């Protein structure tokens, strides 16, 4: 399976992000958790914007539009909650590593076009959502102390799982 360079890229990115998540093993605080979750959404929006700039494939564009729409909605709610709780999101190593990993990913993707881009984008979306799901379920949700933040993260996890499933469908469609 690792003969496919695009899949290899997706898997490598996934490990890179997993590594970033693992660094935060020392129990993040709520302001840090909020920053990580918000960043994860923004990075997926950035990847989707690249897809909307590059791809001509309707299924890929529809998916990318959905990513922009859904993550914008959940992040808007996150900002409203943080304002209400008077919590300022705090940058941290996990957020930084996520951002750096995603920037590299976008750089690789931006070298591609046509069907090669579509496949790589869809595979990266599967890997990315899988990784963020893992982080939400095993670290961010259990470690969040504020109930409302925890609840919003749970919605985020549900959303990321739906997106992962949709991304898997997309990969199947592009074969």
């Amino acid at each position, binding site marked *: 399976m690792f003969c496919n360079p695009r899949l290899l890229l997706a898997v490598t990115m996934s490990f890179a992000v997993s590594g970033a998540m693992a660094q935060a093993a020392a129990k993040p605080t709520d302001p840090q958790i909020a920053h990580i979750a918000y960043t994860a959404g923004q990075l997926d929006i950035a990847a989707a914007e690249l897809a909307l700039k590059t791809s001509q494939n309707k299924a890929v564009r529809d998916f990318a539009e*959905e990513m922009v729409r859904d993550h914008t*909605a959940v992040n808007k709610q996150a900002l409203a909650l943080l304002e209400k709780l008077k919590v300022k999101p705090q940058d941290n190593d996990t957020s930084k590593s996520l951002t750096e990993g995603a920037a590299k990913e976008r750089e690789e993707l931006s070298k591609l076009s046509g069907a090669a881009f579509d496949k790589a984008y869809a595979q990266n979306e599967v890997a990315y959502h899988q990784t963020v799901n893992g982080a939400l379920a095993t670290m961010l949700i259990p470690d969040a102390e504020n109930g409302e933040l925890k609840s919003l993260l749970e919605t985020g996890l*549900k959303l990321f*799982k*739906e997106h992962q499933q949709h991304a898997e469908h997309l990969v199947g469609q592009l074969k």
Partner: protein
Amino acid sequence: MGVRSFVAASAALSLGLLAFIPLSRGAEPQVYVIEINKLAFASAPAELHMNDIVEWRNSDIFRHTATASDSSFDVDLLPGAKGQTVLKRPGVIEYTCRFHPGMKGRLEVAP
């Protein structure tokens, strides 16, 4: 049903106004609400009959659709929006959200 009302009912039928005439079971079509929230459809009502109406209400922060797997309906629902589906045929209809494939439901429509 007298001859006159039978003729009226036939005329209504031919005009496609089936939903607005009394049904053989003697009940008016009912409107049932299925709410969508937190990436899930609420349970579908158990007592659905032909010509009843399902009203989809999207209370979520995300855009959703209610899309029948047999293509009999496809309702696009922005956050806060609602839309209606008239149940025109008896039987089982599975439905999902086109954007969030894990969201699923099932309507069982009696004649």
